[in-house]
C-alpha cells in the first residue's frame, strides 16, 4: 500500500492508483475531460491538474496520469490549480464554445470571460474517440496525425477505414459533439442562461414564451423586496 496526503487527509491506496482515483475516493472533486472509466488515461486536456510537493519543488501534474507515490502531498484546489483550470476552460471556450460539456465545466468553475479570438473548432483532440476505438472496440480505425497546429484525428488517408464497424462509439464519447443549448444568443461564447447568469425571469423580455417553475423563486423574492415588498 502507498500512503499519501490529499488536501491534508491521509489515505492509503494500492500501487498503481492515480491521484485522480485517490482524490475521488476521498470525495475531492477534480474536473476531467479526456479521462473516462474503461479507457487508459491519456493526459491531453490538462484540466485535472493538481499541485504536488511544496515550496520551490511545487508543481502541477495531471492527476489522471500521475500515480500515487509514497509520502506525496497533493492539493486539489490550491489557488495555483484554480487559476490554471480557469485559464484552460477559457481557452476551451475560445476554441469549442458549442460543447455542452465545456460550457457546463466553465459555468461550474465560474469562468465568466473569454478574452481570446473566438474560434469554432469541432474537436479538442482529447483522444477519447481514438482510445474508445482502439481499446473498447478493438478496431484502431482512427488515430492522431500531424503535430502542433496540424494535429487532427482521422482515419488513414482520410478514406473509409476497412476496420471501422460504424459502431458510433467515437461519436458517443466525444465531448465536442454534445451540443449545448444555444440560449437565444448562439454566437456568444459563454453560455448565457441557466447556470451562468441571472434566472430567466429577471430578463423577462428575452424569455417571452418561457415558464418559470421555481417555487419560491429567489429572484422574484428579491425583486419584490426591492420594489418595497
Amino acid at each position: 500500500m502507498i500512503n499519501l496526503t490529499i488536501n491534508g487527509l491521509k489515505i492509503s491506496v494500492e500501487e498503481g492508483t492515480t491521484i485522480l482515483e485517490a482524490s475521488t475516493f476521498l470525495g475531492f472533486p477534480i474536473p476531467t475531460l479526456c479521462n473516462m472509466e474503461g479507457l487508459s488515461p491519456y493526459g491531453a486536456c490538462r484540466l485535472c491538474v493538481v499541485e504536488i510537493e511544496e515550496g520551490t519543488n511545487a508543481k502541477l501534474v495531471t492527476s489522471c496520469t500521475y500515480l500515487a507515490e509514497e509520502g506525496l502531498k497533493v492539493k486539489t484546489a490550491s489557488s495555483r490549480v484554480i487559476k490554471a483550470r480557469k485559464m484552460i476552460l477559457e481557452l476551451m471556450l475560445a476554441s469549442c464554445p458549442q460543447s455542452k460539456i465545456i460550457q457546463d465545466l466553465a459555468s461550474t468553475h465560474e469562468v465568466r470571460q473569454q478574452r481570446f479570438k473566438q474560434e469554432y473548432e469541432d474537436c479538442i483532440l482529447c483522444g477519447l474517440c481514438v482510445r474508445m476505438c482502439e481499446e473498447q472496440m478493438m478496431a484502431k480505425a482512427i488515430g492522431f496525425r500531424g503535430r502542433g497546429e496540424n494535429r487532427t484525428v482521422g482515419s488513414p488517408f482520410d478514406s473509409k477505414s476497412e476496420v471501422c464497424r460504424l459502431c458510433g462509439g467515437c461519436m458517443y464519447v466525444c465531448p465536442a459533439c454534445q451540443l449545448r443549448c444555444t440560449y437565444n444568443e448562439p454566437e456568444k461564447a459563454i453560455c448565457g442562461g441557466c447556470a451562468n447568469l441571472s434566472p430567466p425571469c429577471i430578463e423577462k423580455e428575452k424569455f417571452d414564451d418561457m415558464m418559470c417553475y421555481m417555487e419560491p423563486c429567489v429572484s422574484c423574492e428579491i425583486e419584490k423586496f426591492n420594489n418595497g415588498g
Partner: protein
Amino acid sequence: MLQLNSIEDFNELRRRLLTDQNGKIPTIVISAGTCGQASGANDLIRITKRELLNNNLTGRVKYRITGCHGFCEMEPSILVQPRGTFYPKVNMEKMIRIVEAVNQGKVLEDLLFVDPDTGKRIEKQNDLPFYRNQVRTILASNENIDPIRIYDYIQNDGYSALAAVLEWNEPEWVIDEVKVSGLRGRGGAGFPTGVKWGLLAEQKNGSGKYLVCNADEGDPGAYMDRSVLEGNPHSIIEGMIIGSFATGATEGVIYIRAEYPLAIKHLIIALRRARELGLLGENILGSGFSFDISLVKGAGAFVCGEETALIRSVEGKMGEPRQRPPFPVQKGIEDKPTAINNVETWANIPIIFRNGAEKYSKIGPEGNSGTKIFSIVGKVKNTGLVEVPMGTKINEIVNNIGGGSVSKTPIKAVQTGGPSGGCIPANMFDLSIDYDSLSKVGSIMGSGGMIVMDENTCMVDVAKYFMNFLKDESCGKCFTCRKGTQRMYEILDDISSGKGTLEQLDLLEELAYVVKDTTMCGLGQTAPNPVLSTLGYFKDEYEAHIKEKRCPAGVCKELITFSINENCTGCLVCLRSCPENAITGSKQELHIINQDKCIKCAACKSVCKFDAVDVI
C-alpha cells in the same frame, strides 16, 4: 583484415600507429563539415589532390579532410600542420598557391587572417582572437582526425580510455569516476550523468537495457552536436561502449535526425570500422563483454529530442512525449530500462577517462564542470562553434571570442537555449554561463545555441518568431501547449501589427504562466520563456508597439514607414533596387518613396550608401 582479440592487441596497434606517425611532414587540413562543404570545401579537396598529384608532392605534403573546426564565418578555411598556419576564406586560386607554399615551407602573408581591431595579420590559428580564448578539449580533436579513418582516432588517444576501463574491469568504479567528474548532461536539463548511469546500473532486467545517444538536435541555429558527429564519431562510440560496460546495457541506439546526412554517413562508417576491429559487438577486445550500437533516423520533429518522445519514435510510434514518472531509466524502449544522453555528453566520457575525473572536475565552477560548446550566431563578427569552460561570462563569448557587434549598431541581447530559451539583455552580460545562473535569469542552457541580437532586432518580433516555431513543433497532445502556443502567437502577432491592447498584454503574461505550469514535457514547460523573458526585460518595447503603435527597432512591418532624407544624393541606386518601383526621383534629385506601393522590404535601406533611408 586486422582483428583485435585482446587489450594487448590494441596496445600493440596503438604503439605501431604512433611510431608510424611522422608529425614533421606538413599537412594541409581541410575543414569539410557540412558548413565547410556548403561554402566550397569540396572544391578545395579536389584542387589539393590534383595539385599534389600533378606536382608529385604526395610524399612531401599530406592532406587531411576533417570535420568542422568551428570558425564558420571564415569557411572554407585551411589549417597547415604542424606549423598551425590558418588561411581563412580560401578559394580555388588561393588553394593552388597554398599547396605550393606548403611544399616550399613558406607562409603566404597576403592570405592570412586580418585582425579587424588592429588591422594586423595573424598567422597561427591559436593566436586568432576567436580561438585564443577558447578551451577546446572536444573540438580540437576535429582537426587531427579524418572521421572515416579509425586509425586517426587511435593515433589521437582514441579508444585508449576504453582499453583502460576494460583492463581495470570494475563497472562501479567507472560510474564513480563519472560522478567525481561532475559531468552534467549537455542536452539541456543538466542532469548529473554519473547519477543517471548509477540508476541504470541498479535496474535489474534480464531481457536487456538500452543506452541511447540523443542526436536529434532540432533547435534552430544550433549545430554543436552535428560538428562532433561529423568530425569525431568514434568519440561518441567510445563513450557509449564505456557507458554500457559501466551500466550493463546490452544495446545501444544513436537516434539521429535524417537532416544530417554527412553525420549519418560518418557514423555508419565508424560503426562498421569499430566492429571490424573488434572494438564493438561480441566479445569486445576479448574481454568477454559485448555491446552493439544501431542507428535510428528521426524524421525531423523537434519534439522527438524529448526523451520519452524519442523512445516512442525509436519504437516506431508517433513521436509524442508521455508522463514521467516512470522515467526512461525505469521504463524506456520496449519497456526496458533506458538511459539517454546527449551527443556532447558522450563525447566527454573518453576525455574524462583519458585525463582523469579529478582533473576534469576542476574545469569550470563547482557543480558545473567541464567545457561546453556553444554555437554563436546572429549579429556578431565571428560566428561559429565556441568551446569554453562552464562558467565563462557571456561578455567573454559575445565580445571577445565573438568579436562584438558585426555592425555599428550595439548589441542588445543574447538568446540562449534554443526556441524555448530566454533573452538576456546586454546589461547582464556579466553573467556566467552555467545551468543554474541561466535558469535564475529566466533562460536555459538548452543544448548551447546562442543567438546574438543588436538594436535593430525587435524583441516582440523575436518572441513571435520562436512562438511560431513552437506552435508548429508542439506535439499537440497537451491542450494547453497546443492551444497555448497558438494563442500566445496570436497575441504577439496582434501586438506586432499594432492591433494589440494593454489588456492583451496582461492576458499574454497570465497565459504564459499557465502554459508553463500545465504542460507535460519540457517543450511546453519552457515554451513561454521567450515571451516571459522579453516581457521581463523589454516591456517598454511591447508598450511602444501598443500605446504608440511604434516598433522601436524598426522591424514590424505594419508599424514602420520608409522615407528618404536630405542625405540623398540622387544616386538612383535605391530606385533600381526597389522591387515594387515605389521610388521616384531623377539623378541628383532627392528621391521619394511612394508609401502606397512600398512593401517595406528594406531593399532601399540596405543598398543606400549615404544613410539616406529612414525607418520610423
